[in-house]
């Protein structure tokens, strides 16, 4: 495990790699800020965190957040993150996957990780648009969203990843807002502390390509649950919150304590697969070969 860094240096700069070049005002700044603060407050070390990202503006995250990083493929954040976690459960594995990345091309993986209860935290910077590819509608775009790819406006029902994750058996689901950084810090801390699959959907304005879901627009429509400390393990309540049409309910909407996938399938969760010393193990292999005699 990484050596704990100097306590005096334990501020969020510990997690700074490069200054971000997102558009000024982009919601991603709030998410970056919140994640740094959450990591500091949980006394995590950059070397024990792996951030896996998809392709999109959000994908640049590891360029700015200092930790181990994996900028992989569009939509494959979740399997990569799960693979890392399974072979080294001591790592904090955080997937950052855009609304296109997580809910369009990558949705299948997300829900399967949820049903497995893989012990990873997935943060979805949900700007409700494909930003990096210059502004196409995403699965979370509001109905009627006019974009370069949908000149007549979208007609599909916007997708709520949290509803689906709840249905798939996720043990931690929460919603935040880039405009509420303090609240986001508390969600990220809870998500990082959760043992099992955690999905945090963060409403996050894209000031360049989504002129509808702006900070102001959200400010009028959010409702923050009072506490992130006590959360009921109540699927009906969660379902009702998620189906509210007048408000975005922010907070931890559902949380359940259950053995994680890694706890259930790894023979020895103290001896990480990644740390096994590999030897030819000839005798053991010969013994298996003998079965074919």
């Amino acid at each position, binding site marked *: *495990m*990484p*050596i704990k860094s100097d306590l005096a240096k334990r501020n969020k700069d510990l997690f700074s790699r*490069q200054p971000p070049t997102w558009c000024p005002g982009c919601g991603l700044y709030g998410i970056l800020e919140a994640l740094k603060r959450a990591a500091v407050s949980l006394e995590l*070390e*950059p*070397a*024990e965190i*792996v951030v*896996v990202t998809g*392709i999109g503006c959000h994908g*640049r995250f*590891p*360029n700015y957040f*200092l*930790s*181990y*990083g*994996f*900028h*992989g*493929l569009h939509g*494959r954040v*979740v*399997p*990569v*993150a*799960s*693979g*890392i976690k*399974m*072979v*080294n459960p*001591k*790592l904090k594995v955080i997937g950052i996957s855009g609304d296109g990345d997580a809910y369009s091309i990558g949705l*299948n*993986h997300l829900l*399967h990780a949820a049903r497995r209860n893989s012990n990873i935290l997935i943060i979805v910077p949900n700007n409700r648009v494909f930003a990096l590819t210059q502004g196409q509608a995403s699965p979370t775009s509001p109905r009627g969203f006019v974009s370069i790819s949908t000149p007549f406006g979208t007609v599909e029902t916007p997708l709520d990843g949290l509803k689906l994750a709840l249905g798939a058996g996720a043990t931690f689901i929460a919603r935040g807002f880039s405009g509420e950084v303090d609240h986001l810090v508390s969600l990220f801390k809870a998500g990082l502390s959760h043992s099992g699959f955690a999905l945090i959907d963060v409403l996050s304005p894209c000031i360049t390509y989504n002129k509808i879901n702006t900070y102001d627009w959200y400010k009028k429509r959010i409702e923050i649950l009072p506490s992130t400390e006590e959360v009921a393990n109540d699927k009906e309540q969660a379902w009702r919150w998620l189906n509210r049409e007048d408000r975005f309910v922010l907070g931890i909407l559902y949380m359940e304590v259950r053995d994680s996938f890694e706890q259930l*399938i*790894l*023979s*020895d969760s103290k*001896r*990480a*697969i*990644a*740390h*096994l010393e*590999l*030897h*030819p*193990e*000839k005798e*053991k*292999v*010969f013994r*298996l*070969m003998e079965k*074919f*005699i």
Partner: protein
Amino acid sequence: MKIEAIKRAEAIDVSILIGGKAGDGVLFTGNILARLLKRYGWWAVTYRDFPSNIRGEGTQYVIRASLEPIENCREGVDIFLAFDCEAIKKHAPRLNKGALLLCDGADAAILPTSVSSEVVAIAFPLRQPAKEKFGKELYKNMMAIGALSYLLGLEVNPLEDIVRELFFEKKGEAVVETNLKAVYLGYELGQKLIPKNKRWFLPRFTDNRRMILMGDEAVALGALAAGCRFFAAYPICPASEIWQWLAPRIKDFGGVVVQVEDELAALNMAIGAAYAGARAMTATSGPGASLMMEAFSLAGMIETPVVIAHVQRVGPSTGLPTKTQQGDLLQWIFGAHGEFPRIVLAPGSIEECFTFTVSAFNLAEKLQGPVVILLDLDLGQNLRTTHFPLAQDWIIDRGKLLSADEVAKNKEYKRYLITEDGISPRTFPGISGGIHLVESVEHGENGLRSEDPEIRKKMMEKRMRKLLSIAPNLIPPIIFGPPEAEIAVIGVGSTKGPILEALKFLREEGIQAKFFQVRTLWPFPTREVSEFLQGTRQLVIVENNYTGQLLTLLQSQVCFSPNLKVEGLRKYLPDNFTPEEIYRGLKQLCQ
């Protein structure tokens, strides 16, 4: 025909065919018989031909046993056990002179006229007595084993052991007993119905340190031996056997097998695990391979070692999932978008399935990139006898890997450090001082994305240079036969066995031929092929596909002399070549 003549004293090489319908238990029966013959000290190989259906369609299983090492079945059949008359209709023409046909029920009467008059057909009731005595038709299979044992002159002891081993663990003594009873009933029926002069007497040998297994299992063993401790896969025929064999066993080695939601997840997850420090693998067949192309390119770009076993079946598309073909030879070489170093290994025998898999992991970590082990169904799923152990020794070489201490010594760790050999020292998440980013976008030494043309150039060259650096570690081809032979044959994978046997047939006629077994399909052994072809007049490329993919590859990589006559011998039926077919093909092409 010459082939007939080659079939010498029958007692040293016998072929048994069991024919019936999917659901009849033909596979099960054949497997037991093959193991039995192997225990008897014979070299047994099998050939399975099953429909991709749970039930109802025609199926056949051939067991060939020989006193000399063999790698494949032949066309001719000496003993044919038929569960129905459709099977007879289909396979009777393959009966050798003097062959014996045992036929469940009264169907024996309708022997097609095409069959040699020297063939003896015997009505041999199986279903009927099985049902009567044991209440279940299924016992006909154990009866068949008994009957065949009598016919072959086998002793009953090893058979008893095998039945016990196969059933005991799972089902308990009672089941063993009933099954053995069925075996004996079959044996007795054989005594009653089979003419004495039609019996064979296979001698028993005691030197029995041989294994019988399929290529998929050898790959799985190789993976364990190589230190593979993470396997993610999605079921697909004929590759699932690899990880399904591992699933209950890898735990003992501290590892894990996970069945995931699809092939996209499988390869990405394996890449994630490899990035984090495990030796990781996945396995698939054509349709899954096509889905893995994007992540394959990713592994190349981020320089993560990962091993993919691809067991080829008949395509295109869903094709014939339970039949063999070499129709995906070029897919991993030219298939994914963009250009990156990759290695494709193609074993041609059970031992090679094992040793190449071990090599695959070493090469992947030395190259820091993806390595493919390309099998075909014939090699992956048919049983073959081989020496124990599959290898006496092997090593694990993890390539340029930094220990935590070494990382700590590094001032500034650069994941993509530009080095002379192109290979940059690797480290894993969790280690202080080694913090880095792997990046699918073009990047500089530190992993940060860059669009600088100069960096692009350097990185492209660095990556591609790696292939040259590890060239000395690649698995070299093998050449069989005398260098001066008139006929040169090139082949890859499971055609090895039939090609070598065909060469033997030719040799017996005084015709010399040599065979170049491509073992590393990519990077292609250009120099070795050129040397092999020096002075050669006749080249035949043998491959199990329509378009001649191996020939295409060869032409793209090797400059043929204008004096060389190049021919393709191809089979795109859903079957591997028989040695007889290759023998005939070579004779015809090289007159």
